[in-house]
């Protein structure tokens, strides 16, 4: 790791239950908001392990049972010292389905903030943020911190998902079906950006095929890229050794050494692991 990161903040020990303060819909996505009175403000790219406090388990096939990892979408500190947290959820499995059902003031169990977030751009490079689908989540909090200088490129499948673009400020949008913005892949937008001005640092989160394309685009241009990865996690704090990804130095636990990793550190097969049903 070559980026200069902020000092990692320690999470409060143990799972904490907080009430859901607000649930908002953005097309195919749900944004859950809660106040975290005990937690430090997370760094962009950090994540939390989430469960519903009630009725977690006992659903179809008796799942979910394990908590699910979510990058923080947005964080704000209000006057009362509590950190307000937002998470972006898409219903793609029994855990995410249950989280999408949560209505205020139902309880949300959280452990975090966990992991290493994004490091600022090196050598005066401009930040180019690239997101696909629900992977736009960590880009929102990162854009909040970087401000207007950051370029944001996001890709979605269709109109229902493209509603998520509203969570970012002034993004360029690509859609698979052409319903909005560029008809094609977000990585095509990235290619144009990097051809225009290659003094950039790329921050990306999304499906593995997108990340693989980002990695290759950046590698041939020798542009540094920080990828926020996802992997099935049982714990989020290094206990289970389940979330490993292959790097040039062997397997690393994504929850401890990621979820943000330098693209150049990854071994090629790191981005071929199958997705997991959340």
């Amino acid at each position, binding site marked *: 790791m070559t980026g200069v990161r902020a000092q*990692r903040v*320690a*999470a*409060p*020990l*143990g*799972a904490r239950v907080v009430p859901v303060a607000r649930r908002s819909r953005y097309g195919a996505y749900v944004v859950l908001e809660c106040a975290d009175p005990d937690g430090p403000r997370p760094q962009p790219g950090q994540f939390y392990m989430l*469960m519903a406090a009630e009725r977690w*388990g006992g659903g179809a*096939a*008796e*799942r*979910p*049972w*394990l*908590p699910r990892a979510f990058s923080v979408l947005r964080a704000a500190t209000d006057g009362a010292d509590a950190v307000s947290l937002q998470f972006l959820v898409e219903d793609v499995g029994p855990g995410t389905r249950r989280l999408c059902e949560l209505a205020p003031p139902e309880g949300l*169990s959280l*452990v975090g903030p*966990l992991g290493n977030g994004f490091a600022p751009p090196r050598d005066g490079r401009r930040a180019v943020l690239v997101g696909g689908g629900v992977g736009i989540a960590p880009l929102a909090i990162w854009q909040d911190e970087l401000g207007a200088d950051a370029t944001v490129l996001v890709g979605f499948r269709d109109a229902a998902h493209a509603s998520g673009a509203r969570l970012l400020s002034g993004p360029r949008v690509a859609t698979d079906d052409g319903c909005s913005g560029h008809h094609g892949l977000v990585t095509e937008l990235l290619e144009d950006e990097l051809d225009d001005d290659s003094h950039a640092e790329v921050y990306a989160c999304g499906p593995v095929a997108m990340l693989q394309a980002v990695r290759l685009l950046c590698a041939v241009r020798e542009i540094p890229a920080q990828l926020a990865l996802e*992997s*099935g*996690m*049982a*714990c*989020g*704090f*290094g*206990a*289970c*050794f*389940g*979330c*490993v*990804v*292959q790097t040039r130095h*062997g*397997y690393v*636990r994504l*929850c*401890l050494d990621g979820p943000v990793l330098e693209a150049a550190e990854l071994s090629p097969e790191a981005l071929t*692991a*199958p997705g*997991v*049903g959340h």
Partner: protein
Amino acid sequence: LNAPGDHSGGSSAGPIDFCGIELAHPIINASGTFDAIAARRAFGDQLLARFPFAAFVSKTVTLQARQGNRPPRLWEVAAGLMNSIGLPNKGLRGYLAQDLPALSELPVPLIVNVMGFSRGEVAGLVRAFDERARVAALELNVSCPNVETGLLMGADPREVTLLLDAVRPLTDKPLIVKLTPNASDVAAVAHAAEQAGASALSLINTIRGMALRPGTAEPWLGGLTGGVSGPTIREIALAQVRAVAEAVQIPIIGMGGVQSGADAWNLLAAGAAVVAVGTESFRDPLAGGRIASELASLRPQRRPVGHN
């Protein structure tokens, strides 16, 4: 310490004696389910102040470093988890140089879990840890094949006898044999271990399982099969702990799907002296502490609430 065969569910709160080791309460962690060094990175020194276990059992150490299995390593099952991690660790030398000094800062006794692919390898590990004063006890992971005989060490009473014959003379520290539930007669293996000088037994380890990638005949896990843990194996654990408790006099560390003080109470009632929490810690790193206080409030007379 509960006398073996005393199925009263424990008789007193407060410190207990386990093989000469004083434990503040009967709840420890299952090997491989809590990395105290990683947890301290995530949660800071509050981990030491509020350490959730009465002893710390480290992840399996092997003679040589291991990378572990290729991913995917996890599969969520009904009320539990199946894993195929493959015992990644730094190897004996790396453990002694890096992990042991860090783990020595924990406020509780340290139990080191070791595994070898031959009796000679296990002997080497036992000898190395015998010299370390901070190591209170050793747990022998026998859920692996002996590469010399091809037999699963922990599935065969004779293998366990030969293993203990080889390593028991090498140390005065307590030797805990971690039994595999993937054996046809776990109580027979337990009895053989006791006869050959085991100080204690721990059970159950995970139960072998398999998942297929949806819509295909391909195994999901990189390691092809995995070990199932969590509440889904709780009643299997209870039955095996009871069967082993009836076959031996040495103390038992019972584990398998413990989520609450009532679950721990049941394992004590079935004959365990100590209870280990495993997969539940993945859901909450403080689960062990919560379970210990729930257990304390249940003991001695109050019976846990049934599940009906």
